[in-house]
Each structure stands twice: as structure tokens, then as C-alpha cells.
């Protein structure tokens, strides 16, 4: 296996708050990783950095063997070329907590928009592709509906189809099931689980829902205060946490 995501000595600040400091992290190609931890621990920042939405203040971030961010080499959000960001972002797809569908487009149009305007497919081919993807997430019958008329679970499945439509090598899920009603988590999780069976697709999930991490991940990382305190296979980390902060976190979420 080869490394597809690599953080090397990364520091990131927002104003006076240090989110990451000397942070190292690596994901292998095809690996399914879940990052769990309390809010404010820097989990989402990691995903946004991989997606190319946030840059770093120090250190390097490599994706698919190429440097995405490196302030010493002029690779920051302010200085990197649009071409560089475009090229690097093509490797990655992201699903957000709040779905973020385009409210003025139907489900099918949301999914077809990327193939059409980014990949340059014809309207017809893009729509065909969108309908195929919507079928995969079980939403063929909702293709012509606007997001406001879909449930949260349906919206999130459209969002997953939309991200997959651009054929990323890496899929990032940022609290993708956290805004859903409990009974809708399952339908989104099913879609995520079927994606996780694709051998070559690398998946990084950020969640505070232990069940989601357990269902998807080969490896779970527990993160707190901008550092990974412990990482292991789900059975090991969840059943026999070595770090007492991990144990305390798991106890706390089990109680809720």
C-alpha cells in the first residue's frame, strides 16, 4: 500500500487559537479511517485542509504523492494558483454536515452540475450519469425534486452522489450523519458503507457518532486538542482503549 494523504509537521491557527501544532498523520490508499473526538479538537480542520478549503501555517500536506500545501514553497490559499488547487481538489470529494445542496437545482441537477460544468460532459451525458448515481443511493424517484422538499437523509444521499459524480480517489465525510434525525442515520450510513466496499476508494470520516466510526473504519483515530492521542482498529480502540482520555471520551458518548 502507498500513502495517499500525509500531514507532516503541520501547524494551523485561526487567529490566536492554535488548532494543529506539529501534526503528523497518514492515510494509506484504499484505507477507511474514522477520526473521533470532542468538538474543537481539530477534526474538521483536517478534512477541510485535505479538501483544499483551508491551508496550513507551517509544515506540509501531501495528497496522492503531490504537495497540496507548503507555505515555504508558496503553497498557501493566498499564493497557490487556481490551477494547482483545481488539480489537487480533483482527487478529493467532500460531504458536509449541513448537506449544502444547491437549493435552486433539483436533485438530478445538483448531481449533474459537476460532470457538466467541471468535467465538461454534455448535458445529456451528465444527466444520465446523475440518474445512475441517484439510483445507486436509492433516490431514482426523487430526481426531479428540489432539496427543500427532501428529508435530511435524502439530501445527504444526494450530496454523496454529487461528490462521487466527480470521481474522487478520496472521499471525506465531515459529520455527515450528525445533523440527521436518528432514524435517518441508517439510510445514509448504508450508502457510506457500500462506498467503503470499493477497494480503491480512500475514505476519511470525521464523526462523534461511535456507531458510524465502527461501521465504516479499518482504523479509528481519537483526537483531542489538535493531536491524535490513540489510533487502532475499531475493535481494539473501542473495546480496550489504552489512553485514559480515549476511555473517558468513549464513556461520555456511551452515556448520551
Amino acid at each position: 500500500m502507498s500513502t495517499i494523504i500525509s500531514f507532516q509537521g503541520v501547524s494551523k491557527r485561526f487567529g490566536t487559537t492554535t488548532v494543529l501544532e506539529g501534526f503528523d498523520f497518514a492515510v494509506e490508499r484504499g484505507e477507511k479511517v474514522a477520526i473521533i473526538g470532542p468538538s474543537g479538537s481539530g477534526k474538521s480542520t483536517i478534512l477541510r485542509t485535505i479538501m483544499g478549503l483551508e491551508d496550513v501555517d507551517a509544515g506540509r500536506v501531501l495528497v496522492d504523492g503531490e504537495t497540496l500545501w507548503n507555505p515555504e514553497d508558496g503553497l498557501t490559499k493566498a499564493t497557490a494558483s487556481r490551477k494547482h488547487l483545481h488539480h489537487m481538489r480533483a482527487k478529493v470529494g467532500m460531504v458536509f454536515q449541513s448537506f449544502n445542496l444547491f437549493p435552486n437545482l433539483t436533485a438530478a441537477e445538483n448531481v449533474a452540475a459537476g460532470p457538466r460544468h467541471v468535467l465538461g460532459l454534455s448535458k445529456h451525458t451528465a444527466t444520465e450519469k446523475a440518474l445512475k448515481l441517484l439510483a445507486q443511493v436509492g433516490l431514482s424517484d426523487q430526481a426531479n425534486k428540489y432539496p427543500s422538499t427532501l428529508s435530511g437523509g435524502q439530501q445527504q444521499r444526494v450530496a454523496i452522489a454529487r461528490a462521487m459524480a466527480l470521481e474522487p480517489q478520496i472521499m471525506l465525510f465531515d459529520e455527515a450523519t450528525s445533523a440527521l434525525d436518528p432514524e435517518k442515520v441508517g439510510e445514509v450510513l448504508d450508502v457510506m458503507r457500500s462506498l467503503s466496499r470499493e477497494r480503491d476508494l480512500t475514505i476519511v470520516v470525521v464523526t462523534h457518532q461511535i456507531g458510524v466510526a465502527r461501521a465504516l473504519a479499518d482504523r479509528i483515530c481519537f483526537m483531542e486538542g489538535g493531536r491524535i492521542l490513540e489510533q487502532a482498529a475499531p475493535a481494539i480502540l473501542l473495546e480496550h482503549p489504552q489512553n485514559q482520555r480515549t476511555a473517558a471520551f468513549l464513556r461520555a458518548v456511551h452515556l448520551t
Partner: protein
Amino acid sequence: MNQPFSLSFTLEILPLLLRGAGVTFLATAGGFLAALIIGAMLFATTLRPFKMLALPGRAIMEVLRSTPLLIQVYILFFILPNVGLTLSPIVTGLIALGLYHGAYVAEAYRAAMSHIPRTQWDTIEALRFPRRAAFRHVVFPQMVSPLVPALGNTFITMLKDTPILAAVTVPELMFEANEVGSQTFRYIEPMTLAALSYLLMSLIAASFVFLIESRLRVRFQ
């Protein structure tokens, strides 16, 4: 001088005032179109791709918003000829209304764009939408519904600003009403008619805006 309201005099001046109302409507519609275009250009100077124009754009907007429309009309009509640019009264009017209200329209565009949540911009970036496609298919359609009431307001304000064009002899409603008054010394009929015409046009514009707003509400559902 207390005169009773004369119906026959009213009917006599009606065609003239209707023609004036027509000019008022055309000036408002043309000025509105000019304001949409000038507003879009001023708004563009506030966007990142045109950031070298940000400072001049800001300055122009401040000047346009902080000086009276009448002065802007006078500058266009009486001072520009000194530098070799002579404009007809109606063209002066359209440009002046377009500039003055364009500065406010630019602000309305900006407000409508700031209405779009940050998460939408994240998504546009994550999906790698080219700027133009993002604007056309995602950003602009979401700007429309906050824009409608603001632009409706602009239209009605502009309608009520058109009498200023009388200062440069544009034969609009107020100009004609005033002409009638000063020639016949009867003001009650022309002014009543003029006021009613403005009221009617404003009400029609307002209900038109209301119609568009309710149409927009049922879309996307």
C-alpha cells in the same frame, strides 16, 4: 384663490398629462435598466477578480450616493458640454438616474450575495466549479429572491425621482403639470392628476413586485 375642481378642465389637460406620464414611465424604465447595468459594474469592482478596481469603484459609489441627484443632473447637462460632451435632456436623465440609483443597486447586489451561506461557497470550491458556471447556475439564482424587493424599492424611488428631470426640460409628468399650472394659473387639477398618476404607477409597480415575490416562493418546491 379658492377654485372648485373643474372636470372639463381636467379632461382638457388629460391627454397632455398622460403623455407626460408616458415619458415618466419610459424614463423610469430606462433609468432602471441603466441602474441595473451600472449597479452590476460597480458591484463587480467589489469582487475579488476585479480587486484592482476596488478603490476607484468604492470612491465612485461614495460620490454618487453622497451628492444630490439634481447636482448630478446639472453636471451632466450643463458642465459636460464644456468638455465637448453634449447630451440631450432625456439621455441626461437616463444616465443620471442610472448612476445615482446604480450606486444603491450595487449595494443591493452585494447584500443579495452576502445572503448566500458560507457553506455554499465551500461547496462551490470543493466541487471545483469554474467561476462563471458557479455564478450563473448557483450564485445568481440564489441572489434573485433577496434582490426582488430591493429592486422593486429602487424602481418606485426612481419613479418619484423623475420630476428632477424637469430641471433639464425632460417633458415628463411633473414638467407638464407645472407647465399647465404656470400658463393657466390653475394648479389644483394638474397637480391632483399628477399625484394620482404617480400613485397609480407606484401601486402597479408594487403589486408587480408582490406577484414576482410570490411566484419565487413557490419555485424550488
